[in-house]
């Protein structure tokens, strides 16, 4: 079983490399660090929230509220910077606290009132988006000297690529996510909860703390993503990031995490984001492809990835891949209808 999980991740990486090589053959620019650094920069906000989504999905849940939370935080920051003299860093701290509290409350409702996460976070989606409209219905620009300084921080590569601060934040979040998932008790509890919540309960996993913690983490990362998005666009727009929750879920699934929970890697989500970035870059380089093709290509890719993962994890597929080596059949892998 363990090896098949790695295989899923390997397949995802293989498809990414294939996609990248095909793009490279068509557009030589893909050979420089510029494209990769830009893809990380443009998708940093999506990546950060996708890391949070990975944890929620690993725990067997789902968080539909992240797109609204990102937009809410963006508008909140823009309004605070416009109407008060508070330093941006303090505003950021407030934003992170709000996101975390929002997530924790949703987690508490999910656990204590046993309402499905799909429904609770859907209400969270409505609530956060609705709360924005209470403050403003228009786009609010940000002009702050602090923003100008921060945006220009970047690591420069010799061939012209710029790994900006936003991309670096994403990479730090990613490394932090991998650490939490595999080297902390909280991470192991999340895997246990998503794998089999009854078994986890009997083994003494603190279900309440883990459930609340995982949604609080997702809320925290959505808020951080909101901060990054606000730095990225230098504005707060009430209708921003509609549907980002679906993009994040797609990236997590393409990254090899099973939506049923318990199986997956945070590192896979990075590949999911990079695949997303590669497709976007290819379509914008091509220029002749219309906007609706992006949607269709991502839909087709989703299908290919999911089917591929099924092939790899299914018994018949394993037999196929093992090239005649004897495959082990245990009671747990009995065919289900």
């Amino acid at each position, binding site marked *: 079983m363990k090896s098949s999980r790695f295989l899923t991740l390997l397949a995802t990486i293989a498809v990414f490399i294939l996609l990248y090589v095909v793009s490279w053959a068509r557009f030589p620019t893909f050979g420089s660090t510029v494209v990769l650094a830009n893809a990380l920069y443009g998708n940093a906000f999506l990546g950060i929230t996708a890391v949070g989504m990975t944890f929620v999905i690993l725990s067997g849940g789902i968080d539909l509220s992240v797109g609204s939370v990102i937009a809410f935080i963006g508008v909140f920051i823009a309004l605070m910077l416009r109407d008060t003299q508070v330093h941006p860093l303090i505003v950021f701290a407030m934003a992170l606290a709000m996101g975390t509290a929002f997530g924790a409350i949703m987690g508490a409702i999910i656990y204590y009132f046993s*309402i499905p996460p799909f*429904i609770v976070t859907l209400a969270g989606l409505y609530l956060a988006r*609705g709360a924005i409209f209470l403050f403003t219905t228009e786009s609010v620009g940000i002009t702050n000297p602090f923003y100008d300084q921060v945006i220009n921080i970047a690591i420069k590569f010799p061939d012209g690529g710029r790994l900006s601060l936003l991309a670096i934040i994403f990479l730090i979040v990613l490394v932090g996510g991998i650490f939490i998932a595999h080297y902390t008790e909280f991470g192991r509890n999340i895997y246990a909860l998503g794998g089999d919540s009854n078994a986890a309960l009997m083994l003494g996993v603190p279900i309440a703390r883990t459930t609340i913690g995982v949604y609080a983490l997702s809320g925290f990362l959505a808020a951080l993503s909101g901060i990054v998005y606000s730095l990225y666009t230098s504005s707060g727009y009430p209708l921003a990031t509609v549907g980002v929750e679906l993009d994040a879920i797609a990236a997590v699934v393409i990254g090899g995490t099973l939506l049923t929970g318990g199986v997956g890697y945070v590192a896979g989500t990075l590949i999911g984001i990079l695949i997303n970035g590669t497709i976007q870059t290819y379509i914008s380089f091509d220029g002749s492809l219309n906007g609706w093709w992006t949607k269709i290509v991502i839909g087709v890719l989703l299908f290919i990835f999911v089917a591929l993962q099924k092939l790899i994890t299914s018994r018949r597929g394993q037999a196929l891949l093992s090239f005649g080596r004897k495959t082990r059949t245990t009671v747990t892998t009995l065919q*289900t209808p």
Partner: protein
Amino acid sequence: MTTQEPLPIDTKVAVRRVLPNWLRNSRRALWPLITLLLIMLADSVVFKGFFNIQVVTDLENGQHFYGATIDIVKNAAPIILLAIGMSLVIATKGIDLSVGAVIAICGAIAATLVGKQNVASSIPLPLIFALSIGAGALCGLWNGFLVAYLDIQPIVATLILLVAGRGMAQMITGATVATFQNPGLSFIGVGYIFGLPVAIYIALAALILVFVFVRRTALGIMIESVGANDKASYFVGINARAIKLSAYLISGICAAVAGLIVTANIRGADTNNAGLYYELDAILAVVIGGASLNGGRFSLLLSAIGVLIIEAMNTGILTSGVAPQFNLTIKAIVVMFILFLQSESFRRFVGRRFRRTA
């Protein structure tokens, strides 16, 4: 063997045995019905004459009934159709996120086929209906195939069509809003029969048809059994895959009919906005109707009542005169409140608090 005591007769159970099925399950129906009643009462407070129904005459439709309650049912019709299919899908422990996209696809097909303004199309209308419903059936079969035969988790399987579906609809219409003037097609969206909107009859007919189809045959029980435990169902000889496939198929067909109504209503196929977020409303309605997202049970009637609750709420918010930007916030709060009322753990929680303070 010693003397045998007579079995104690539980009168409550005995009475329940005699009652027809729907009354026996009436405890489940209680909360959604109370909620609907409360929301309609709240509506009548903010909106004088909420329950009034008048007979009005207009040029296009002649004499017909007019009133807020009729509007609510009419607006609810497409989502009731979605909720019918969604109930079955959720009962199999699945979910269908693609229905909004299917609405866009089927609307695009119908609007494109009836042709542009005033140019009479050579394709007869029944064939257009059949083609567009056929496309919905294909979408349903695709979802069902992925879920039942490839064992892909329902959220991911239907996410694929949700993402790609609007792209396909835009390819059909050529990325424009395809408008039309065909009176036959627009009739199902804005027409009246015996003074009531056609859409209401369609939703009612679908409700009765599917009800008879699943509850007067073993299909309904099989759907619930597959949702409750698909492995066990498989071992007692139920073809779990075929049952799941049929649930998604029905959902696709219902979404196609809803797509025809939505398109007919605005006399055009807006691929970007037609049916946008309808899937969330439909899922919400099924849950408000008391079904569990873990599958295993469904009630078409309660799901339809769930839709009416959402529509009555929307109407109430719109007519109460609060600024439109409050809509989403109020909706979220009311939805959470309804869900709290229905959550057994919440009722127990509140009950404990009350007893402690008393």
